[in-house]
């Protein structure tokens, strides 16, 4: 990233000289007029983003709206806001174990997965960002293929594998299975951040007599703390949103909230209000953390390549 900044400033400088050269051939008036026109053009800049954001938020608003309605209000008429607001749906979720256990299960395996993914990805990302070694590029590619592989392909063999180990319906099974796509993701994101740390820091630390583990924990990790945060967030997110593998590997004891929600959907006599409330609660973790990672979202989804 240091490299990118450097490049940007260099371009900035050359760009300025170009425009200076051009500007000097024009009168000051003309430049001022052009600048004014530019300002006029951008007066309506906000329309497109606003319309887009409203369209994005409308379905989410509808979900939130429904979560505060009673079932009779939802079914009887289409109301744009809850006429008789109730928190009964949320109360149901927080008091019924079959609902809130789903959240606890999800959080347990997601946290386990995040910890495992980051722990194994940190040294690997360091190796990729600092060294060349036999087969490094092919290894990197192989990791990518795992991130790209459809979960549907792995659902069946995972079921067989974890059955053989007697791990079906445990949190660790889901946590390990989600490593399939989260470890490569963490490696790629962390590698991007680590490449931004100048190598001189490593060399100075080694000259100062730091051992590798001590250097890594005391000096290097604080330097890439934001990178670790971003990687954690994306591991958390991608494990949190995954349904297929989590549903396949669990039956009752470790059933995630996502699977509980789909079960409710297929049952007859839908409890729309509770379903909506459950949906709102699953959106919350992402919505709460999003502000802190706003500049890294594109990076995370593009595997750290932006």
């Amino acid at each position, binding site marked *: 990233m240091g490299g990118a900044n450097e490049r940007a400033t260099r371009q900035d400088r050359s760009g300025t000289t170009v425009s200076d050269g*051009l500007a000097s051939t024009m009168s000051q008036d003309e430049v001022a007029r052009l600048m004014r026109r530019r300002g006029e053009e951008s007066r309506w800049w906000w329309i497109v983003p606003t319309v887009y954001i409203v369209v994005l938020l409308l379905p989410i608003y509808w979900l939130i709206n429904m979560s505060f309605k009673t079932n009779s209000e939802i079914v009887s008429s289409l109301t744009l806001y809850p006429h008789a607001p109730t928190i009964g749906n949320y109360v149901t979720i927080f008091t019924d174990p079959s609902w809130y256990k789903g959240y606890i299960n999800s959080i347990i395996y997601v946290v386990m997965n995040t910890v495992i993914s980051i722990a194994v990805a940190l040294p690997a990302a360091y190796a990729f960002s600092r060294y060349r070694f036999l087969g490094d590029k092919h290894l990197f590619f192989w990791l990518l293929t795992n991130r790209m592989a459809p979960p549907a392909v792995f659902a069946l063999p995972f079921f067989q594998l974890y059955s053989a180990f007697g791990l079906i319906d445990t949190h660790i099974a889901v946590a390990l299975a989600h490593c399939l796509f989260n470890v490569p993701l963490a490696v790629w994101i962390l590698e991007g951040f680590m490449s931004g740390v100048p190598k001189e820091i490593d060399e100075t630390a080694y000259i100062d007599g730091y051992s590798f583990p001590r250097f890594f924990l005391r000096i290097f990790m604080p330097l890439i703390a934001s990178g670790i945060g971003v990687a954690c967030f994306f591991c958390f997110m991608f494990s949190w949103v995954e349904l297929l593998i989590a549903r396949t590997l669990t039956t009752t004891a470790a059933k995630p909230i996502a699977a509980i929600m789909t079960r409710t959907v297929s049952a007859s006599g839908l409890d729309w209000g509770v379903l909506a409330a459950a949906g709102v609660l699953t959106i919350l973790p992402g919505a709460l953390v999003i502000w802190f990672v706003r500049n890294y979202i594109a990076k995370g989804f593009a595997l750290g390549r932006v």
Partner: protein
Amino acid sequence: MEKTWNNKAWFLVLPVLVLVAFSAVIPLMTVVNYSVQDTFGNNVFFWAGTEWFEELLHSDRFWEAMLRNLVFSFIILAIEVPLGIFIALNMPKKGWAVPVCLVLMALPLLIPWNVVGTIWQVFGRNDIGLFGYYVNALGINYNYVQDPIDAWVTVIIMDVWHWTSLVVLLCYAGLVSIPDAFYQAAKIDGASRWAVFRYIQLPKMQRVLLIAVLLRFMDSFMIYTEPFVVTGGGPGNSTTFLSIDLVKTALGQFDLGPAAAMSLVYFLIILLLSWVFYTVMTNYDAER
């Protein structure tokens, strides 16, 4: 950064290797084993040779699912990429509006996929959903549960709603790296809006656009959760994409052999796409 050659780095990669080998290589080997055998349960297997592959390659069901998936991928790319570029071009460049836009636009990306399905399942219903209700009120007969075309429209709108922001954010990341001086120079030259886009903005976005197109193609090629929750693959088989079909065969009917053969063909296609993705990106980075 100049990297030093050091094969000891393998020890740092070893944990990842062991973990991913456990969760990727063993399952894949199992899939290969299953794909050439038949079973009646209880882990008793019979040699079947290439039977499942032949059956798969001659089955209409597979090719139809494949065709559906390809059509779906191309439609959403054709909508999301131009729309994403257009919105990214109109994003504010500085000031308080930037973080607000980023956060609000990124919101759909962070919603669990099954909740995305639930949201649209509700939103599109013509009795309790805002979208379905008002579309019907406009006089258009819309019912995604019964009409295949309406189901397709719903799934496509849902995907556009869900993922266009990714294209926007990627394009925006490319756009903000263009120094202001470039625009000023273009203005002074009297360059048209189109010329600015064509000769300044598009070249700068080329790399992120490639990433966006490839990512969107691959993700839509393995889409499962959202259409599964909204339509369950129906009505009939009209929204049964490859992943939905595969899960039906593998976990619904527990036909290990056919499911494994299908998984392998599916995986080979993904492998090819991943290779294209990787090659494009590394060559781009090398050229810079």
